[in-house]
């Protein structure tokens, strides 16, 4: 007994050792490229650092977040622009992820049926996702352009609008333009994740449903949806977290416009345009904390669900 136990623990120790050998390089790289900037950012959040005079930095405690000065409150937490950015980000995340899920589901269900050339179509549908965001954002920027854009050209040609619309500049349409481009770009990713979920479904259930004469719509809601729920939840978490830190697409399409400004765009504006490294870092730190809390929440909820499945 004790001999077996000893050799087992020896084996475990050897495994742990080789695990560390493999992990160490990755952890060093992560610490350098992710850990260090993160710590610097959090540190700057508690200072009055300025981009033009980084040497002359003072520690000012929580003043970047909230400060009471001569009868008035100052700081990030009372900045209406910040809360506007937070609201924009949440709105963007909820709407774009919801649309991507619905369209991704439709695409995945279509691709999951057997037809000729399915392989090519599966590859082709990934193209929007494979194009670098900066490229597709620029491309859409031109297509949405109020004077030279093809979208206005088409819509005016078929008589839906009589005047060119400044899609990305007009307050009414800017957010929707951004959401549309994001949906265009990310639906393939969603479709791919859902398709992966669909492909592992047991086919015999569907034959049983067919024999029982159950309507396909009912089969979708009562069989398919519950069965792909795990894959769907993973896809939703992935996309949700990704959408919360959206920057490139919005910055390229609408620059610093107030209508579409997200938390990331706000932080960049403070940090680079206004040179307020301290204040911008405070915004970045808040963004980091919001996402961290959401990750922890989703992971906890996810664990509870996994626990149920395992019983």
């Amino acid at each position: 007994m004790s001999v077996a136990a000893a050799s087992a623990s020896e084996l475990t120790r050897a495994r742990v050792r080789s695990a560390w050998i493999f992990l160490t390089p990755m952890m060093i790289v992560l610490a350098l490229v992710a850990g260090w900037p993160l710590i610097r950012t959090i540190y700057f959040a508690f200072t009055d650092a300025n981009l033009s005079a980084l040497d002359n930095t003072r520690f000012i405690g929580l003043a970047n977040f909230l400060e009471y000065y001569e009868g008035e409150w100052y700081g990030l937490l009372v900045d209406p622009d910040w809360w506007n950015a937070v609201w924009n980000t949440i709105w963007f995340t909820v709407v774009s992820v919801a649309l991507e899920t619905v369209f991704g589901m439709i695409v995945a269900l279509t691709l999951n049926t057997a037809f000729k050339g399915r392989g090519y179509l599966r590859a082709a549908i990934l193209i929007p996702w494979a194009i670098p965001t900066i490229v597709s954002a620029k491309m859409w920027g031109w297509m949405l352009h109020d004077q030279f854009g093809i979208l206005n050209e088409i819509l005016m040609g078929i008589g839906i609008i009589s005047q060119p619309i400044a899609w990305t500049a007009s307050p009414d349409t800017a957010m929707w333009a951004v959401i549309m481009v994001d949906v265009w770009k990310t639906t393939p990713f969603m479709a791919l994740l859902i398709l992966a979920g669909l492909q592992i479904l047991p086919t015999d259930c569907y034959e049983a449903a067919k024999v029982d004469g159950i309507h396909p719509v009912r089969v979708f809601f009562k069989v398919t949806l519950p069965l792909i729920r795990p894959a769907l939840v993973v896809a939703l978490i992935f996309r949700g977290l990704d959408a919360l830190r959206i920057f490139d697409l919005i910055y390229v399409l609408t620059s610093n416009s107030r209508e579409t400004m997200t938390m990331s765009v706000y932080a960049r504006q403070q940090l680079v345009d206004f040179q307020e490294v301290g204040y911008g870092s405070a915004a970045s730190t808040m963004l980091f904390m919001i996402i961290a809390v959401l990750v922890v929440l989703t992971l906890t909820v996810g664990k509870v669900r996994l626990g149920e499945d395992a019983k």
Partner: protein
Amino acid sequence: MAEVVLRNVAKQFGNVKVIKGVDLNIADGEFAVFVGPSGCGKSTLLRLIAGLEDITSGDLLIGGERVNAKTPKERGISMVFQSYALYPHMTVYENMAFGLTLAKSGRQEIDKAVRGAAEILELTPLLDRLPKQLSGGQRQRVAIGRAIVRNPRVFLFDEPLSNLDAALRVQMRIEIAKLHKEMGVTMIYVTHDQVEAMTLADKIVVLNAGNVEQVGPPLELYHHPRNIFVAGFIGSPKMNFIKTKIDAAGPDGLKVGLPGGGEAVARVKGDGASAGDSVILGVRPEHLTTQSEGADTVLKGKVDVLEQLGEAYLLHTRLADGTLVTAKIPGDAAYNEGDDISLGVPNELCHIFRASDEIAFGRIM
């Protein structure tokens, strides 16, 4: 009322002909079993009847009505799949009720149907469980229960017991036989298992490469196989085949030579046969005896391999011409491998097949 009739039914996948013109009559309330080697088209034929595959040509009639273009539900069939095909996220109750909910029956009627089926199959204590919380046999019963509640005209089973262990198979086999008696509906059953086929069937359909080789009650197929394929397929271990020639044809049988000398007079109608024709002698392992005295004929050989089964033993015996003949003898073996042996061959239990087309001569009974 719900007889199933196939008229020249054929099925083609692309260029591959899988079912090549099957004619079949299954009477109302009859238990028909499809058997045949793997890949011969048993499942395909069943799926054609179910409506899960399109019939390429021919007619399928259920209850006198042509149903080629009807959905499975309109055909009034229920199917039990080999893999059970239960919905993994639904409880036993929901699995059984799911197919009913859209039919116009009310909630109470559904409840009554499900609880009734659960009672028959002894599933009542399990109604709130998920499929993964059940044993294989229980899952299989749920799959059968789901088929019962639909109150079908025709029941289809595709190898429903092949995932179960031996003891459970016997138990479920008996339950299915009981179910057939109680419900009295037409059942069509696909299996690999000889014993299932023999015990359950009113009528066995032997399929081979998309063709029906023979249709008949189990014992008729056992005693009067139409050709070598059926003779070899029905019965286990398989019938022994010995190549030989006709020595003489008479009114009470065909006299054929045996390897290593001796002659057997097989009690078959030798119409059209004449001395010198090449034939194949068939004799079942369980019909050979080790009592050579008093036997009609004797086969001499050497025991090659001996297999003990407990209730019986198998003597794989090498004859003078190299043919391997298996004898199944009850009791414990009194022989060793390498022993010389004489096997008794009963004339009235011999089969003779023409070598040219492998068709059997009718036996004189």
